[in-house]
Every structure is written in structure tokens, then in C-alpha cells.
């Protein structure tokens, strides 16, 4: 039954369906089909595109050096090679952290990025201060802001000492705000 044209008389039998006239039935089904396909495609596709923006890479503990190398009360910059996953690429990059060994053996580790705008700051042994060359932020050995545009103290990285080895979780923080917010 394919080629009979629709009866012109609206009251004729067979013209009405549960949805309305045959015509509105076809319109409704067409729209429903398009809608279902659209939904079933757009949800995964949107997820697909924003996927990297949403995924939080699990940050591992990395060994950055031995605690014996650290003089007590003197900040030392520790360099280490980190394996970084960049999409489908795996690359090794050089990273650094500032480590300060306390008298009781505990080690405080600071993120190497200045909380103002992310520059790498330096320890000035003579003045006993951390100084950032970019915009002149100055911090004391505990990371507290002494001068300059820095909005907060130096960010701390989680650290752990195991068998004389210093382990750190490297994190990045949002620049330029008063609160320490992990990226």
C-alpha cells in the first residue's frame, strides 16, 4: 500500500492517527527521528571535544633528590627529569623545585613559579630572601611576601621523605590571585 494519495475529505475514514492527521504524524515522526539522532550524536561529540579540558591527570609522586644534599636552613633548587604526557605524546622535560630543609629534618618544598605571573624566582643568599626578577616580588625563607606585586605567599608542594629520598607531587597554580588554587 504505497501510492494512494491522501483522501481530500478530512472526515474520511483512515485520515486520523493518534497524533493527528496523517500529515502531522509524518511531521512528528520526522522531527522525532532527527531529534533522537541529533541528541545521540551531539552528547558524545561535545564530550569528545571538551574531554582534555575536563580530564584531571593523576599527579604522581616523583623523586627529586636526596635529603643529604640539602643544607639545613638554606634553600636549594633541585632539578629533575619528569615524564610528561602531552596528549598521545610522552616526553621528558626538566623541572625544578625549591627545597628548604628544616632543623627537625622536615623539608618544605615550594613551587618554582612566582604566584604573581609565573616567572622563576631566585634565592639571594646574601639578603636571605627569594627574589623574582620579573616584577620584583620578594619573599622570606618561609615563603611569606615581603615586597612586590605577589598576591600571596609562595605555593607549597606536597612532599615526603622516604629512605633519605625527597618525593614531591608537582603542581601548577593559578597566577595573580590571593588564593592558592591548583590548576
Amino acid at each position, binding site marked *: 500500500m504505497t*501510492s494512494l494519495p491522501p483522501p481530500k475529505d478530512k472526515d474520511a475514514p483512515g485520515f486520523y492517527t493518534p497524533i493527528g492527521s496523517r500529515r502531522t504524524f509524518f511531521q512528528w515522526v520526522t522531527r522525532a527521528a532527527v531529534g533522537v539522532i541529533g541528541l545521540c550524536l551531539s552528547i558524545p561529540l561535545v564530550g569528545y571535544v571538551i574531554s582534555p579540558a575536563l580530564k584531571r591527570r593523576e599527579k604522581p609522586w616523583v623523586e627529586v633528590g636526596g635529603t643529604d644534599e640539602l643544607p639545613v636552613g638554606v634553600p636549594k633548587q633541585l632539578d629533575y627529569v619528569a615524564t610528561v604526557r602531552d596528549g598521545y605524546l610522552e616526553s621528558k622535560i626538566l623541572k625544578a623545585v625549591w627545597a628548604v630543609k628544616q632543623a627537625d629534618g622536615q623539608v618544605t618544598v615550594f613551587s618554582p613559579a612566582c604566584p604573581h605571573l609565573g616567572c622563576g624566582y631566585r634565592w639571594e643568599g646574601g639578603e636571605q630572601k627569594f627574589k623574582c626578577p620579573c616584577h620584583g616580588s620578594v619573599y622570606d625563607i618561609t615563603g611569606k611576601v615581603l615586597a612586590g606585586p605577589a598576591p600571596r605567599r609562595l605555593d607549597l608542594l606536597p612532599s615526603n621523605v622516604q629512605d633519605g629520598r625527597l618525593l614531591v607531587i608537582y603542581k601548577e597554580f593559578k597566577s595573580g590571585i590571593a588564593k592558592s588554587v591548583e590548576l
Partner: protein
Amino acid sequence: MLNRLYEWLDGRLHLKSVEKTLLEEPIPGGASWIYVFGSATLFLFVLQAVTGMFLAIYYAPTPDHAYDSVEFIKNQVTFGWFVRGLHHWGASGMVVAVGLHMLQVFLYGAYKPPRELMWMVGVVLFLIVLGFAFTGYLLPWDQTAYWATQIGINMVGTVPLVGDFLAKIMRGGEMLGALTLSRFFAVHVLFLPALIVAGIVLHLFILRRVGPAGPWDDERASLGSETFYPRQVYMDAVVMLGVFAVIAAMAILVPLPLTDKANPSDTSFVPVPEWYFLFYYELLKYVHGPLEPLATWVLPMLIILGMLFWPFIDRRKSRHPASRPIGMALGVLFLLAVFSLLGVSVKNLYAVKRVDPAIAHGKAVFARFGCAGCHRVHGEGGAVGPDLSYAGDVRPERQWHVKHFRDPRSVSPASIMPKFPLSEQEINDLTSYMLSLKKAG
């Protein structure tokens, strides 16, 4: 609100007359479910284009990173496996849809005047679809991709005079490598899409100019005609939803693994082409020696030319299948040949050696009675009795084992192996296990 927007646009662009032209196309004889295949093909093409675009967001077309990027899509990207699955099964779906569409058009003689051009553009579109399939297959750069493409290009190389040159152009040089991948990617993602869109537009433009053919029977055609909208559109939409459901179901339910990363030095890998090329793969197995070029390119060339110029070969005025016996017979013959070859190919591919369940039972008996206490099999077990790793080679006769298990000293007088309380069934299963322990798998 949408209506108001439409009214506003219509006031400026005169869209209503465009809508009328598109939707009020009369179909002689009325709408029918048999006419859905063209729209199904178009839908599948759009699905391929969309999923393909999204795949390109994460895919890297270099030998170093292609495989890793596909694995990244598969395992790390949210719904990446789904988009990849849709694209893979969508490709198969498109071949099926194109096949059904061509079949329906052929059956209805809708290639006859004034529609010859439509048919010819259609054949070119079909070839472009095969081109998409061939170039796309290489992109994951796994073993299957690499070796299947190697074979495909070598087949082109068998064409006399120009074969070698053509093969070099396809490969981008002497070897299949980075230049091959980059040009296959460019062709798959840029050149062929442009070509197919131009072809589709031409195909549909011609359709509007000549009108749909309708039934082959003039009587049914004159029963009346119906506008494209709403009934044919509704039928097309329902079929599109059905096709999408099938493709999505396959993407979700059927695993789509990557074989190992392409290894150009591993020539032992035997690639298998996609199912829609299997009939050709099977045919090539039967033709060897000097007749090989016949199957590699002469026959395909003749068939493609035959397809392309069919409207000029079959010049009968009537569209009725009954009045086109030769055409119908050739069509049926072609389909029979293709599907038989496909069937044989599939049967051979899946001819797995059936594993005797007795072997597994025998192994369980071996474990239950602690035979490993005295006997070693592949490095595990004691060294009191003989090593049984290749017992099937050392003692290949079933009867010897059966006698031995019934009473070890009956066949091996110096044996210190105790007589175990084994049932006949256990003896037989244990024997099957012993016989399976051989050097050659």
C-alpha cells in the same frame, strides 16, 4: 519564535519558494519505502564526515604518532571509542547503502533516458566511496593497515606500462612510509570530500532537473503522484534513525581492536582487507601466473566501464525488469559471484581448528592426580619421571598411552610409576592431553 525568525529570513531571502521547490517535488506513483536508499547513503556520508572531522581533532598523520594518536582516541578521549566505532561501522554501512541504492536504481531501470547522467555520476560516486575506504584503512598505521595497503598498491603496480609509475605516485616513492601516509590522509580528508560533495550536489541537481523515475510500470505511475514532503521525508527519516541505531549498536557492542603498530620488517603478517573487498581478495587467490593481471585489473576495469556506460549498453526503452532479461541476468550473476566469493572467503577466514574438549579434561585429570610431582611439562614439575613436554611426539600412538595408564609396567617394565585408579573416561582424556603435547602447536 522559530517561526518568527523564519518569517523574517523569508522576507529577505525568499526562502519559502526554495522550501517549496525542495519539499514539493512530485514523486510519480507516490512515496515508497523502496526509495529510501539514496537518502540512507547521504545520511551515512554526513555521519562519516562529522565523525571523521572529530577524529581529526586528535589524529596525527605521521608514522611516528598515528598509532599512538588512535590509541589515545580509543582509550583516553571521552567517547573516543564511540566516535571511532561510528566511523568504522559507518564505512561498512555506507558500502551496504550504496550497494542497495544502486541495486534499486538498476532494478527500476532508472538509468534510462533522461537519467543516464545521474547513473554515471552515481557510478563515479561509488568509486569515490571505495577510494575513501582504501585511503582511510591506512590511517591507523597498525599492521593490518600497513600490509593491506602494501598489497593494494602492489596490485596497482601490476598494470602494464603505467603500473610501476602509478604505484610510486600512490606510495610517494619507492617505499610505503611517511609520504604514503601523508598523501593518503590528504586524499581521505581533503581531496575526496571535496570531490564527493561536488558529485553529490551534481547528482541531486540532476535529480531535480529530471525528476524521480517512479515505478517502472506506467499504470502504477499514473495512479497519482505525491510530494516529497511529508511522506517520503518521513520514510527517509525513519530509515535514517534505523541505520543510525544499527551503526551505534555495532560501535557499542562489537570490539574494534588495533593490531600491533605497523612493523615494515615483519613480512610474516597476513593482512585481511575489509569485508567489502573480501570477494576480490578471494578471487585473486584463484588466479595465478600469466593470467593474474586479468583478475588484478582487466576484469575490474571491464566491470567498472560496463557499469559506467550501462545506460548506453542497455538501450531498450522499457524500464520493466521483465523486458530486460539480459540486464537482470547479468545483475543477478554479478551479485551471485560477489556474494559466493565473499562467503568462501569468510568461511576460510574463520576456519579455526576446533579444540578437542578432551584435552582440557585430560589436563584437569593430570592436575587432580598430581602428576607434576614426578613429571615436568614445559618447565613445571618434578624430574623423577620423564619430561612430558613433547610426549605427543615421543609416543604418538594412542594405544600405548591407554595401556600405560591402565598398567605402567605393561609397556615400561622398569617403570616406578604407580597404577593410578583411573576410569576409562579419565584414561582417554589424559591420553588426549598427552597427544596434544607436541612441538608444532
